[in-house]
């Protein structure tokens, strides 16, 4: 039942927050914050309950809910959580809190509707992470989309309409392909067994011809690849990030990417193992190209948000490489990278948002020498830039190292070229530090340094990244509880 409560609390929180904004803006914000925090505490209790125990054999999921929804079509309201989804739910709720808190001062118009949308998106993300019925999964997947469109188009910057339509077209078209693939799988399974069902676990054993499996896999893959985003379907992300508000960027780059990576691991790998084996090498090549391509593009960006968006695409290229390289170390590295990337890129967006809040610009050219006036914010920015360039001791390094060392065992040239991507990340990360914080303060900025609220959020994110970098064992231990569901983790 906990899983249902997670969703109910978020949706109810969203509705209440929307309603109360009419009377009191602060109350609206507090309700949203309380809802997400309550969910986080619930999940932490859930995590603590089973932490470190071996995976229960009889009940394969740490927690499960299975209600019949539309029995005629074999649709169930089926939620389940295991180590893998647990980690990402925790990440989602933590970053959800961050998103609510940074919107506190940045969002001043239509506060109620804003929080309503934000809560719906978070509920959609949780739905994606928990759904064990493909219909419910698709439903949640689309639930993320529409509120996100509003977040971009209402609270965005100048070219927000363009960005919102671009986002909508990319994700909607690819989502449609996934819908077709889900239906194809549904009917193919019916033809083979005579049973109509969207159940994940029953479809796992679906008998498909290699040809059909490949096409259906590609349908799923289209949706996940666009949302990740993977090269060459990535171009919506920088355009959107350049226009959207800080919290939106955080949700887009850190959380939506996490759902895409999760969906690949949960659905793509177990449903179509043979098709993945065939398509894997091609995807890894694209992943490596994406890593290098985005690093070079990040180097030349003049808009701070765009730069971070490309940095994010580069890290997600590593995630893609880890998932498709067919090695268990690499796959585990991919999960760690999803978490670490969520925090480090999210924090970079926060830093950029903090800079924008003070200087009223996202252009790097208008900054420079800010260390003089905001030393703490600059130090924090430096810290997260270092995390992004893969400095050992921080979470991103553990993930990327595992991905590379795992990939090396399968194909060493791919790993060696991808390792150059870590080097290339140095270029843009140092350029960011140089042109924003160092140099002379030629624009004579005189700005307030970190507020306690910003300091608290960023400090928590720093601690989490260091923890992930120096003692990530709990993450691996939790991940081990996904053993039965993701057999490829252990291949």
């Amino acid at each position, binding site marked *: 039942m906990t899983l249902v409560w997670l969703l109910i609390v978020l949706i109810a929180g969203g509705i209440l927050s929307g309603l109360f904004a009419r009377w009191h803006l602060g109350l609206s914000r507090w309700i949203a914050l309380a809802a997400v925090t309550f969910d986080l505490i619930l999940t932490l209790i859930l995590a603590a309950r089973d932490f470190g125990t071996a995976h229960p054999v009889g009940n394969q999921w740490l927690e499960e809910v299975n209600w019949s929804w539309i029995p005629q079509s074999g649709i169930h309201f089926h939620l389940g959580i295991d180590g893998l989804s647990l980690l990402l739910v925790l990440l989602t709720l933590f970053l959800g809190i961050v998103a609510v808190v940074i919107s506190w001062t940045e969002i001043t118009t239509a506060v109620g509707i804003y929080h309503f949308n934000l809560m719906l998106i978070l509920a959609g993300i949780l739905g994606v992470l928990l759904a064990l019925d493909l219909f419910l999964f698709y439903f949640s997947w689309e639930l993320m989309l529409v509120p996100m469109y509003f977040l971009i188009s209402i609270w965005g910057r100048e070219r927000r309409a363009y960005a919102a339509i671009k986002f909508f077209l990319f994700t909607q078209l690819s989502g449609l392909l996934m819908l077709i693939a889900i239906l194809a799988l549904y009917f193919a399974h019916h033809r083979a067994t005579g049973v109509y069902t969207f159940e994940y676990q029953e479809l796992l054993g679906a008998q498909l011809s290699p040809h059909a499996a490949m096409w259906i896999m590609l349908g799923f893959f289209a949706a996940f690849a666009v949302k990740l985003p993977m090269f060459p379907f990535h171009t919506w992300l920088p355009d959107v990030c350049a226009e959207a508000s800080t919290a939106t960027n955080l949700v887009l780059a850190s959380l939506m990417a996490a759902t895409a990576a999760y969906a690949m691991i949960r659905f793509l790998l177990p449903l179509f193992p043979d098709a993945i084996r065939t398509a894997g090498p091609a995807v890894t090549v694209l992943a490596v190209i994406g890593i290098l391509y985005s690093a070079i593009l990040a180097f030349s960006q003049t808009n701070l948000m765009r730069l971070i968006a490309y940095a994010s695409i580069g890290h997600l290229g590593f995630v893609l490489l880890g998932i498709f390289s067919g090695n268990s170390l690499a796959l585990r590295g991919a999960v760690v990278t999803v978490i670490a990337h969520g925090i480090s890129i999210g924090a970079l967006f926060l830093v950029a948002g903090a800079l924008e809040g003070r200087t009223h610009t996202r252009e790097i050219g208008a900054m420079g020498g800010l260390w003089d006036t905001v030393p703490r914010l600059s130090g924090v920015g430096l810290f997260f830039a270092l995390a992004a360039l893969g400095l050992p001791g921080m979470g991103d390094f553990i993930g990327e190292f595992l991905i590379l060392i795992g990939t090396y065992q399968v194909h060493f040239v791919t790993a060696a070229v991808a390792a150059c991507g870590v080097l290339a990340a140095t270029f843009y990360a140092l350029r960011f530090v140089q042109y924003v914080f160092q140099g002379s303060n030629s624009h004579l900025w005189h700005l307030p340094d970190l507020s306690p609220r910003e300091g608290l959020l960023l400090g928590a994110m720093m601690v989490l990244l260091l923890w992930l970098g120096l003692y990530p*064992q709990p993450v691996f231990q939790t991940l081990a509880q996904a053993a039965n569901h993701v057999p490829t983790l252990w291949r």
Partner: protein
Amino acid sequence: MLRLLWLVPALPFASSLVLALVRLPRRAVAWIATSSIAASTIISLLVAGSFLSTPPAAFAYTEALWRWFDAGSLHPEIALYLDPLSLIMMVVVAFVSFLIHLYSTEFMSGDDGYNRFFAYMNLFVASMLTLVLADNLLLLYLGWEGVGLCSYLLIGFWYRDSDNGRAGRKAFIVTRVGDTALMIGLFLLFHRLGTLNIQELMRRASEQWPIGSSAALAAALLLLGGAIGKSAQLPLQTWLPDAMAGPTPVSALIHAATMVTAGVYLIARTHVLYALAPQAQFAVAVIGAATLLMAGFSALTQHDLKRVLAYSTISQIGYMFLALGVGAWPAAIFHFMTHAFFKALLFLGAGIVIKSLNDEHDIFRMGGLRKHLPVAFWTFLIAGCSLAGLPLITAGAFSKDWILWGAYGAANGSTGLWVAALTGVLLTSLYTFRMIFLVFFGEQHSQVTYRPGNAMLIPCLVLAFLSIVGGYMKAPFASFLGTSLPWNSKVGAIPIGETASGGIAAAVFFLGVYLAYVLFLRKPNLTMAVASSRAGRVLHSLWSSDWAMDWLYDRLFVRPLVWLANSGKSDLIDGFYSGVAWLNKTAWRGASRTQSGRLRWYAAGIAAGSIVLIAVVLFL
């Protein structure tokens, strides 16, 4: 006592954290920063004492702190490994760093980034100590990258000048090129041998790989890639001269204790691998010999006092690489130690000179300082003699003679390498005494405006003492280090002995001093004439620009990459999607234009459409 080992890197880490987070008054900053390194030094000495008095089994002690992570087949620990090699490195690094910290408390006293400076410096020392004590290559890599990071932060410490930032980024990026090779080397070792624990790796490598196996060669070369990056050897040496942009104590730290000797340590640590890959080991020797000569020539033409010292470091590390390459392992580590003493001292002395002359770096605008800065002069002279190798007295002579002898008499030694090393001796004494004569003798060109206090002078005196007596430790040093890093002797007869080799080196040293005296003190006009001749000009510009390698790299790598980045800035891939959008819009515009509201156009359209349809039906 050995169990206190973890405190040695932990204390500087902790103080770095405190300094980064808490805003403290200057005195407290200086006190915390210096005392943490002092405590670290004392503990390392205690550990060393206990290690010597009651050696642990097999002369090695491992202290496991915690399991880093367990990802299935890869499960590294955060663990420290102490054997004679890491013990010597640890003690020297901690002690020299302490002296430099003490010096910095005064040197940096007027700087507004006092807090930040010491936070970085402590992190630097902590990273280096982690590097040398690491029990597995992943932890070593953590220290390795931490050292690279701190060099970047400290070289660009005075961030308001964007040139300093550029030098810092150059250091980080160039060394990271090497680090990438090292990382791939780690992948290879793990893939083939299934662990990253250094001792386990060495054992498995010698069991599973025959001498000359291609896997060993590849692994050794990849690690070498990392080593030349950090140790500023050919062809990745270009970052070190620019690294002089940082405050002078930083240069002392980078050159003497932390950072550049990391590559030497890595190769010594994994010497089993190099024994399995003779070609790779030979490559180490050749790189060392080539670097020591090239950097020696470059040092001869520099005007900036600190750049002379920078090239001198590159050249001296070249000696260490030469020693590693020929199999004179203990000689390399011994030279590391003596070099740490005299090079730190040279930089600290240079810092005094530069600060007293109000930030003057050009040696041609100094001169005659021996009367005004007597302590600086005498200590600098001792360090210079040690660097150039004044025989029988100075520490540098002992270590260099040992390497020289190794270049001839160790396993892979040869006459060619010995001659290269001997030429290096001439160059070293030439550029060292050029510097000493120009700075301290002759006419005075600049006014002394600052006199160093005790915090700056005491470290110099201690290091001067060590630059002399350090040499007499050779015999116990060799026997102690021999338990973990033995000298590989040459098989067969050796025509000249160690003493003869040392004697020749001594003669060459005096020749160099005399030449320097003539060329730069007695007859500077002669030097000018030679330098302004056609060939002299070409050579001078070649040497002073570090053999034009910066220029070459700029054209080969930097500019193409920047051009590529800038020309692809607007994301070419997006062009495709924009094209699709444009196509749709155009089609829409065309289609909407037909809806003009004019009846005759509609009639004409219907008629034309009918004709086409009928034609299709009739003719197809």
